[in-house]
């Protein structure tokens, strides 16, 4: 069994305001190339888990490891997000004043030093997601599906080891949602990228090789196509 790429050890997240426990001693590990769907009802802790796995949020107790090491601080997590973790949001979170091409270039600052090289790579990624013709359009001029394709291209900016996608189809119609899932799965297949997908849709979760179900901040099931894990 390969060493895990991402793992959580007894991770809890309690929000100080109101003392709400979003995650309660969650332990899991995700290997390189895995396709994992995290599902559960609203408030079950899916998004919190995803945010903890990329260092956007920090656990109240327990620890998160990336490549078997716990990043020391926020800057170390930021560097990991820049180079090895791609993140796709439900609400796209594109920068409205920048063009599609520039939005894809944003994560490359600090990783690719030459501006021309950044632009060249961004053009290539826009081509991969079928947005070459929209390179000079701003997010406000794109459809929902195009925005999410753009967000996916941005998440691929620095060829990450893992893509964390938080309800990536949540704001899309079913046909566009299917296209987006196909795109993410295609990227995973061709690049060997690990894909962790948060969804509350059982049909989408069913497409993943491994399905983790959360309820009230705890893992209630962890199944893979090969068999049940927990």
């Amino acid at each position, binding site marked *: 069994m390969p060493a895990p790429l991402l793992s959580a050890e007894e991770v809890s997240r309690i929000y100080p305001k109101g003392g709400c426990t979003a995650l309660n001693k969650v332990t899991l590990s995700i290997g390189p190339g895995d396709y994992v769907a995290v599902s559960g009802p609203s408030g079950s802790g899916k998004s919190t888990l995803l945010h903890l796995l990329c260092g956007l949020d920090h656990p109240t107790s327990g620890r998160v490891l990336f490549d078997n090491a716990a990043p020391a601080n926020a800057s170390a997590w*930021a560097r990991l*997000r820049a180079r090895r973790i791609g993140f796709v*949001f439900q609400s796209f979170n594109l920068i409205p004043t920048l063009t599609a091409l520039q939005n894809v270039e944003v994560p490359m600052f600090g990783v690719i030093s030459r501006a021309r090289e950044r632009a060249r790579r961004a053009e290539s990624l826009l081509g991969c997601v079928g947005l070459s013709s929209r390179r000079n359009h701003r997010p406000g001029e794109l459809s929902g599906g195009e925005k999410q394709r753009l967000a996916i291209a941005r998440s691929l900016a620095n060829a990450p080891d893992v893509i964390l996608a938080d309800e990536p189809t949540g704001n899309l119609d079913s046909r566009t949602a299917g296209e987006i899932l196909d795109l993410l799965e295609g990227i995973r297949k061709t690049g060997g990228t690990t894909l962790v997908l948060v969804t509350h849709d059982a049909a989408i979760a069913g497409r993943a090789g491994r399905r983790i179900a959360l309820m009230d901040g705890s893992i209630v099931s962890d199944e893979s196509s090969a068999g049940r894990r927990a």
Partner: protein
Amino acid sequence: MRLTGMALSNLARRPLRSALTMLGIAVAVGSFIVMVGLSQGIERAWVTDLRARGTHILAGQKGVVNRLNTSLDESLGREMERVEGVGAVAGELGDLMILEEDQTTVSAGWPMGCYLWSALHLTEGRLPSPGEADAALLGEAAAEALHKKAGDVLLLQGRRFTLVGVFRMNGVMGNSAVVIPLGAMQDLMQRPGKVTGFNIRVDRPEASGRVAEVKRRLQAAFPALVFAESDTVADDDSILKLFRAISWSVSAAALLIALVVMLNTLLMSVLERTRDVGVLSAVGWTSGRILRMFVLEGTLLALMGGIAGLLFGSTGLHWLLRLPRLRGLFETSLSGTLLLQVLLVTALLGILGSLYPAWRASRLSAMDALKYE
């Protein structure tokens, strides 16, 4: 895209607000240019005038603020000539006068036959003859402004003088001056036998330390007077010191206001772009990079305002110095050093004004920022 391009694109997000902030900075920098330009302009005009006359040392009364109000006995000049190293001494009774057409001019009375007359390059007419009490010479620029030529009548404080010649000198002050014989000036000013200062020419001034050495001797011989080398005469002049202090204070206040305007603009910008800051953090920007981006925005904003201010200021200064009341007293050229200083101060203003907003942006929690509506 470079970081600079991204910063410019962020500034273009609120074009009116950015333009107004730039305008505020431009007005502050423009005021700075005008005030400091005027202060430096009068100093440069004076020094240029003294050099053109061939004066190495200027003597005046000690402890007075306005040297034009002083009265020294003109006979002191003969005593100064006896000091070793002094080549020639010319007493001078000077004042500022308003001529026709509202033209302010430096008016000077010089003893007939003194070395100062030889510094005048006549473009028309002649020098006054000995004993010719109502003769006057006018600088070329003043003659042009007043539409006067040799042979015309010139009224000085209501007294009629005959313009016997027009001269050219190096420097705006000399070219706008009126010169009459010392006796006539003493009559006009009702200060018989008095002068406001002495122009001193040093023998062999090119020898190293020679002028400073003669100045020391003069100072020792005449402790009640103050002696200044021509090149540094403006540094110790009380009125110019006061003018300099006012110029810098007004400029500093204007720049401080610009700093506050910019601080406000960038704080608003950080607040509006809280979500974008969260996105930058989510895609891997470190707090240091986020800080640098906001500082760059502030610096670019300040520099753009600064360049506009340089244009406003230098245009305003040139316009001001065309006014009859001012044109004969100030050199108009702005020194490259001053322009560089202004750009540096503006860049510093940008950095200072953006540091706090940038620090706030860099300290935002990514999760809180992403939730911001």
